[in-house]
């Protein structure tokens, strides 16, 4: 089968191109890009005028909740949400039940992906057994089973020597190390950002120092071990002087943020809105601004969703009982588009943050529109506006502060090899 995508804006960070043109896919393989490719009667033509043609996004911070919490999400629904969001590869966090700290769990995930999954899934294993922060997991056997990175996810490895061992051992097996930087001795019991709203709502605050203290410790260990640390979902402005310092010192690190940290502020939690409860917490206007600047400066290289599905059972409860997190696979690109609209990043830079840079973090070759590569691409309409109703959301859970809000930008077509999905468009 031939698929000709015509007159789209082709943006491919793997080749550094951003041009209007045609792209031809034949038998699931990219044939080429040119100004004008003629079609014949055997060619399916997709008209992509004023739309973006991109390699599929790579989201390295996703919770699929499978095994163990399938009422929130499972591998089928989570990867379907990814597909609809134009995310054709996800790395899934290990805080399942039980956590992904053994090769058996990794194999279960990959087997289920093979049977039910829509997109490519890279499992992330735990750093320590049971995420307890004490004993390392079997990095070697996890790697053999298919793990690309290790992380204790929501739990920062507080014991510094254990973390140092993990970095050294990860280096030996070429595994990425992802750190959720929050010092629990400062953040424990915290519900929202420490400041105006923690005062107003009487909820225990999480100060920015919890994040910065953890980041600095991790950078020191990265320097000492030579193993890069990937700093997940940074949220506050006070962290960036230290990242600048780390760059000057040639400390190996990569840094990530999520759309909610540059699209929302702590105001969202007013009136005890549990949909806006997330770790790290939403912060102030000045943090939102600093994150945009850090993306522009290149201090942050990766945008991930931190897709964290929770059902009404975990969200329609007292604030302190509510689980933190929000879904994000389908809003990743629409919300990130803000950065282009406001002039912080050009589309090519933005796609680096969403495609090539995250792939580099987990040491995999990024999807590409180069001739000869397997087709792994999306067409995205950056102008389409629509309401993110529950019917639009493909996840089992609908927990997002953007629920029923208007969004701009939507994936209209996805191609993986010979499989082509053309999505019905919401109104």
């Amino acid at each position: 089968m031939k698929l000709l995508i015509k007159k789209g804006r082709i943006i491919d960070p793997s080749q550094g191109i951003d041009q209007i043109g045609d792209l031809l896919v034949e038998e699931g393989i990219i044939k080429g890009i040119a100004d004008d490719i003629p079609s014949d009667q055997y060619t399916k033509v997709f008209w992509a005028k004023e739309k973006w043609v991109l390699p599929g996004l790579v989201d390295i911070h996703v919770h699929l909740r499978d095994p163990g919490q399938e009422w929130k999400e499972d591998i089928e629904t989570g990867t379907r949400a990814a597909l609809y969001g134009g995310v054709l590869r996800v790395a899934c966090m290990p805080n399942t039940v039980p956590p992904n700290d053994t090769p058996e769990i990794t194999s279960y995930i990959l087997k289920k992906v093979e049977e039910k999954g829509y997109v490519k899934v890279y499992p992330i294993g735990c750093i320590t057994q049971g995420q307890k922060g004490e004993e390392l997991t079997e990095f070697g056997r996890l790697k053999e089973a298919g793990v690309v990175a290790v992380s204790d996810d929501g739990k920062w490895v507080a014991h510094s020597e254990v973390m140092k061992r993990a970095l050294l051992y990860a280096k030996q097996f070429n595994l990425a190390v992802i750190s959720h930087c929050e010092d629990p001795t400062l953040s424990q019991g915290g519900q929202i950002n420490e400041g105006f709203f923690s005062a107003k709502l009487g909820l225990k605050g999480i100060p920015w120092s919890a994040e910065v203290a953890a980041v600095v410790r991790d950078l020191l260990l990265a320097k000492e071990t030579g193993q890069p640390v990937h700093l997940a979902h940074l949220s506050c402005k006070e962290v960036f002087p230290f990242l600048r310092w780390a760059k000057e010192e040639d400390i190996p690190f990569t840094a990530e943020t999520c759309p909610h940290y540059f699209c929302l502020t702590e105001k969202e939690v007013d009136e005890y809105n549990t949909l806006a409860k997330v770790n790290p917490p939403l912060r102030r206007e000045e943090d939102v601004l600093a994150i945009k600047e850090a993306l522009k400066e290149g201090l942050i290289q990766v945008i991930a969703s931190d897709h964290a599905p929770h059902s009404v059972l975990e969200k329609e409860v007292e604030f302190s009982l509510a689980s933190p997190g929000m879904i994000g696979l389908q809003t990743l690109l629409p919300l990130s588009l803000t950065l282009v609209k406001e002039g912080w990043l050009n589309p090519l830079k933005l796609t680096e943050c969403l495609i090539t840079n995250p792939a580099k973090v987990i040491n995999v070759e990024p999807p590409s529109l180069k001739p000869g590569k397997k087709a792994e691409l999306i067409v995205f309409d950056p102008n389409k506006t629509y309401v993110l109703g529950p019917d639009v959301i493909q996840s089992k859970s609908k927990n997002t502060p953007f629920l029923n809000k208007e969004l701009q930008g939507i994936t209209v077509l996805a191609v993986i090899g010979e499989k082509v999905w053309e999505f019905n468009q919401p109104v």
Partner: protein
Amino acid sequence: MDLTSKPQHVLDIASLSSEEIKSFLELGETLKEILKRPIPKVPTLRGRLIVLLFYEPSTRTRFSFDRAAKALSADTLTFSAKGSSIEKGESLLDTVKNLKAIGAELVVIRHPMEGAPHFIAKNANIPVVNAGDGTHEHPTQALLDLLTVKERLGDFTGLKVAILGDIKHSRVAKSDILAFQKMGAKVYVSGPAYLLPTPLEEEYFRIYPGGFKICYDPKEAIRDADIVIALRVQRERHGKPLIPSFTEYQTFFGLTFKELELIKEGALLMHPGPINWGVELSPEVEQYPFQVILDQVENGVAIRMAILLKLLTGGKTYEVTH
């Protein structure tokens, strides 16, 4: 004054306007007279069912609401977490829905989690009165404090209120800070520095220019104050004791006659109770002529009558007073 407008809930001082606060105080003053009658009871809320939902221990507040409801002839169901279906794992929302099905028309709730009253107000479609939620607010305590001050001093404008103690974990402090400022007073707080609002949190409490100040020196807070409110040193809300020792606290933050020499002549001394005598208050200050601690308790009944009446009837007082 529009006494016929019917607020739906009393969730926190933050969401009450100064007009609403004033109307509660006026109604409270009127209703207080009922409590002085030979038979201190009127039939206004006869047959109405009020549930007192207490997820935390309470003596004063629970009895005060109970007394207020009964003085208006309402029926009450008192419910404490121990010995109920909560121990079987029933959720707060289900509990309230069930009580509503039983016939409850209004819920008074005390809960260890901040925002629990707001949560049921939003989801259970029943009037809710917050009787203290975690470290958030205790609005009826602030209203009774205001009523006590109004009785004694008449007006709030320009008064200096000093609040001493663990501001961070005190829902009473948070409600008082807002309530006194809304009525035109200025509020100075002091206590151990780490139990005061952080610089980041201060902005929230400063609702009028010059109306709020954090003092590291307790003397600065109490000097020339018109009202001093001592807070209870809370032990149960901290995981571990946050006070180095009671002796240390008493020495640097406790009130004795020596500190009371700094306040204005005739200034009021208040405490929301229960008091740790010998810690935040030295036993001798019970003799201070302008301590109004039991007046506060008495006014608590009147103000809670006003709240119940307003929420259940819109505050039509005619039939009550005549």
